[in-house]
């Protein structure tokens, strides 16, 4: 089993493990952020470039460093590999660049976006972004589209992570959407606007890291942080039936799959807990469900006002990194990122 050292922590992992998975095994302090990789989707990752890391030693056998930063989600570890993530100022710089690119054409319409509060791009922006944009041109615009009667596509917000394409490919029966056009004007589209119509299509909403694919039944109902997540289950013939209910008062506003600490749909006994459209869209009363208890959410964006687990971890890493830096150098952080009072006030 190869041994890899990431930000100074060494771990032994099974053959074929990626740097990212190895980092996740160590813990959130060293795990690079991901916008396109999704462990439950085959061939995902490699696109967004937020997970770039520096390989300062290729392996025991060939200790040369890799010439360029690599996408940790698509690079397998080699025995004796040494990886720098949070400890590399170069990587901080590169990641800030990627965040700037992801935001360059982003509409920044968080105030009216249903994803706000559970958006990976917001998190990423808080942690690695700058407070001002240097992009001064009109942002690209697409028409909003309905993909079937329950899902809405806001292409303006899409970061082309390909997760929904892969979900449609791998989780649903018949894929009718993909990427059209190329470059800056590439867009997610259903061919000839054909609606996606099958039992598992709703999962594209859960994999979308931003507010590009949203649940129309939840549209403008509430800010996410005013709703209370509760885990629940039911016997479902189509799916695992394990869900998260989002309450406002006694009302279930939204049903989603349960997500793990990386923001991915949970797995149960090695099977991904995708949920069917019946559970997601049609079971919106408490009576439909057996309640398991309040959900534990450890995301670092505004939603986790009461659960700042991951933030604490992040702070610990950065403190450690500060200590590791030569005297006098400073680490700059995204504004307010480390102030838990910032959002809970």
């Amino acid at each position, binding site marked *: 089993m190869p041994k890899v050292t990431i930000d100074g922590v060494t771990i032994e992992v099974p053959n074929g493990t990626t740097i990212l998975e190895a980092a996740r095994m160590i813990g959130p302090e060293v795990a690079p952020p991901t916008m396109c990789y999704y462990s439950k989707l085959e061939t995902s990752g490699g*696109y967004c470039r937020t997970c770039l890391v520096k390989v300062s030693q290729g392996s025991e056998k060939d200790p040369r460093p890799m010439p360029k930063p690599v996408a940790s989600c698509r690079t397998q570890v080699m025995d004796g590999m040494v990886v720098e993530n949070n400890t590399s100022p170069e990587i901080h710089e590169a990641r800030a660049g990627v965040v700037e690119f992801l935001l360059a054409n982003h509409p920044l319409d968080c105030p009216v976006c249903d994803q706000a509060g559970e958006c990976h791009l917001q998190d990423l922006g808080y942690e690695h972004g700058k407070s001002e944009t240097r992009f001064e041109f009109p942002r690209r615009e697409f028409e909003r589209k309905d993909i079937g009667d329950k899902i809405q596509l806001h292409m303006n917000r899409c970061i082309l992570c390909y997760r929904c394409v892969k979900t449609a490919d791998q989780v649903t029966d018949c894929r009718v959407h993909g990427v059209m056009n190329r470059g800056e004007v590439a867009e997610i589209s259903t061919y000839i606007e054909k609606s996606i119509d099958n039992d598992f299509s709703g999962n594209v909403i859960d994999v979308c890291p931003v507010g590009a694919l949203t649940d129309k039944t939840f549209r403008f109902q509430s800010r996410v942080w005013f709703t209370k997540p509760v885990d629940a289950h039911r016997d479902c013939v189509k799916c695992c039936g394990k869900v998260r209910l989002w309450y406002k008062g006694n009302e279930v506003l939204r049903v989603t799959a349960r997500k793990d600490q990386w923001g991915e749909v949970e797995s149960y006994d090695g099977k991904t807990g995708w949920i069917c459209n019946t559970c997601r869209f049609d079971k919106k009363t408490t009576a439909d469900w057996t309640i398991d208890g309040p959900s534990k959410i450890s995301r670092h964006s505004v939603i986790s006002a009461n659960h700042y687990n991951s933030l604490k971890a992040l702070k610990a890493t950065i403190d450690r990194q500060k200590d590791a830096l030569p005297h006098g150098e400073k680490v700059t952080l995204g504004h307010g990122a480390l102030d838990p009072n910032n959002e809970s006030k």
Partner: protein
Amino acid sequence: MGKKLLLEHIDVPGIQSLNVYRQKGGYETLKKALTSMTPEQILEEVKTSGLRGRGGAGFPTGLKWSFLAKPEGVARYLVCNADESEPGTFKDRYLMEKIPHILIEGMIVSSFALGANTSYIYIRGEYFYVARILENAIAEAYEAGLLGKNIMGSGYDLDLYVQIGAGAYICGEETALLESLEGKRGNPRIKPPFPAIAGLYGCPTVVNNVETIAAVVPIVKDGGAAYAQIGIGKSTGTKLISASGHLNKPGVYEIELGLPVEEFIYSEEYCGGIKNGKQLKAVVAGGSSVPILPAHLILKTAAGEPRLMSYEGLADGGFATGTMLGSGGFIAMDEDSSIVKNLWTFSRFYHHESCGQCSPCREGTGWMEKILHKILHGHGTLADVDLLWDIQSKIEGKTICPLGDAAAWPVASAIRHFRNEFEEYVKQGHSIKDVKHYYRLNHLPEPVN
């Protein structure tokens, strides 16, 4: 006269046809390969020749071939990259149009060496008429028993197909090419695995440029050692150069690697000097992707030595004062040309051609193009020039495929060597008319950054 290996018979009337090509010794090499050599021997000759990929990266061809995985019972493919879309590069078209059989012969010899029984030539959509020429040549070859079953009685079978792309630059990137060939969206694959392990339809595949494959013919004919005698150092053999821009005699030239740039530009044998008696301002030496160099650095290295047209010669000085041989697209610009305008044209190209898979390239190419447009039209600020520099540095080396680098390098090098011209545009805007004195005689004495 430099030695001509590929273009020797280019002016022979009717050389496009199989008959005339054979009269000039065509397909003798194939016969030699099939009847007197083993695939391993051919590979050895190619290794000995020192041939390096002519598609841009200059990777040693013999080494690439030796990486090809050979699992039992799995098909192997040779794919010829005829997508030639790099601005400033048109040598493959010339070769295929004028002397198509040298490519066909090279394909058969190379396929035999690699153990491929099906091979493809992937050609860009705009070259549809060249595709027809190739198809005719292939039909002639089938007719003459040079393709198909039991070629020349050797027991070796090969089918060769021409596939026309839809005219996307990105489909010249080898893995995007393979995707496109498989009938999918032309997105570059994330590597590894490399095509040598899992290429076309997941099978081991070699992708080589047109010129690379054509060069296999003279290598097998005269032996790798003879080929290695030509050229200089690790840049062996001859290279086709597509010369364009403000030259008296633009066109495709076959040069022996190691030719001094000065001789190439000014001698009567090659480009015959700068048009209208003007002065040379700058050269993009290897296709739009490589760094632009001001006249003094393209003619002489930073150390004052004559600069040579070879992989090492053009790269001398790294990116600070050197460039790359690339695909051999040699674009000369005279004293009246505007670097900023040229750069904008290039940037517009990369913006248009990015596949959009990875964020730095998708967003960065468009952003740079917009800033350049702004500067060119007189609305730029000095901060914009710094911003451009910063954006290109955040694209370079951080993308899935080298198109990101290809978009970043021209921007970086233009600013590195011609920053004062950008500043002049900022000050004067598009009213800038007489660009002459801003650079040719007034280029930065020391490159910045």
